[in-house]
């Protein structure tokens, strides 16, 4: 265990864990967008910044990526932290003015859209946190999507923005997306995501359409479980 002082409180945390967990464990809330339990951390959204003090120096770090340290003095609400967080939020708001979640978070933090940042109209609600790309690679294991181009043209999508053969239609990307940028629509035996329509498998017991055929085939191939066995939905299993 390592001992730290967070906002004046003595907090003990397990070695190897991140500051964010220690802060939240101490009952202090920190806004985050990209820290999702299912994917590795990347520090992309920058909202989790805190000020740490080591010796006489203080600096701003992303708490989601900073490991806990003995004797660290952490301030989650200093003026410096608030300023950085406000700027990050203002820029996110300018990129995704339509995002309901961002609007709500900004309101809670008392932040209004700034005139000096021109609003983007072509970015949807994507904040480029890469969570979807990481879940597709780390959890699903197909890497069907990526972040393409660079700078202000950077967008998330499938290669060549075409229907991806690698995609299995699992919808994990839509699930982890913090701002609901990825649209997945399921109607009857069809599911549409990334411009491709997937055929859904009906549960062999209750008849409910519960997963794309391609996803079940993928799982079957990977785990060796027979397709018939997988064709029973989780509720009937």
């Amino acid at each position, binding site marked *: 265990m390592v001992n730290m002082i967070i906002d004046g409180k003595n907090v003990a945390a397990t070695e190897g864990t991140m500051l964010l967990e220690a802060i939240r464990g101490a009952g202090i809330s920190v806004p985050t967008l990209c820290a999702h339990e299912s994917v590795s951390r990347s520090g992309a959204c920058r909202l989790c910044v805190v000020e740490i003090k080591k010796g006489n120096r203080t600096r701003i770090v992303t708490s989601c990526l900073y490991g806990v340290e003995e004797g660290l003095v952490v301030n989650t609400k200093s003026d410096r932290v608030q300023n950085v967080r406000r700027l990050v939020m203002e820029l996110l708001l300018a990129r995704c003015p339509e995002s309901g979640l961002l609007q709500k978070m900004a309101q809670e933090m008392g932040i209004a859209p700034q005139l000096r940042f021109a609003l983007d109209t072509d970015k949807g609600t994507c904040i480029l946190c890469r969570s979807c790309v990481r879940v597709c690679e780390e959890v699903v294991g197909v890497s069907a*999507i*990526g972040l393409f181009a660079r700078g202000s043209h950077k967008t998330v999508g499938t290669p060549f923005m075409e229907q991806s053969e690698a995609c299995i239609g699992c919808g994990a990307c839509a699930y982890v997306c913090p701002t609901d940028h990825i649209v997945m629509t399921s109607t009857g035996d069809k599911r549409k995501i990334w411009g491709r329509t997937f055929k859904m498998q009906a549960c062999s017991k209750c008849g409910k359409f519960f997963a794309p055929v391609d996803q079940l085939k993928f799982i079957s191939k990977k785990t060796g479980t027979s397709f018939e066995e997988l064709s029973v939905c989780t509720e009937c299993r």
Partner: protein
Amino acid sequence: MKKTGNYSAKTREIVKKHGGEKSALIAVLQDIQEAFNYLPKQALKTAASAMNLPLSRVYEVATFYTAFSLKPRGEHVVKICMGTACHVRGASSIQDKFERTLGIKPGETSADGKFSLETVNCVGACALGPVVVINTEYHGQVTMAKVDKIVGKINKEGAQS
């Protein structure tokens, strides 16, 4: 399709040359671009499967670097340096001149497939500004008159061969 087959065979050859190493992706893409003058879709797909990389990763790299082109480029790629030194020495009027002479804008290729126009940020020859790089040849202290001369020379060479 014959052309598609060509892309795949040549791409596999290039991947093999680099030992199929994942870390050699950029070198592979450079060689593919060298071979076809751009990165054909089929070549990227072949490279991805031959190197055991997801296509999304290959496409990420191909779209990230401006040195890679996903569109077919002309026989002669004209790169006008837009770095600070070239800029203050009139690179934008040189660009204007090239646009009018070739009838294309940056990022485009002329209808006859002879010229492509590109702007680059610095070619590291600031003392020679404004600099224009055509294929691998550097032209320094380019003036309006020189543009006509350079383009004329390339056109003449093309007519002879």
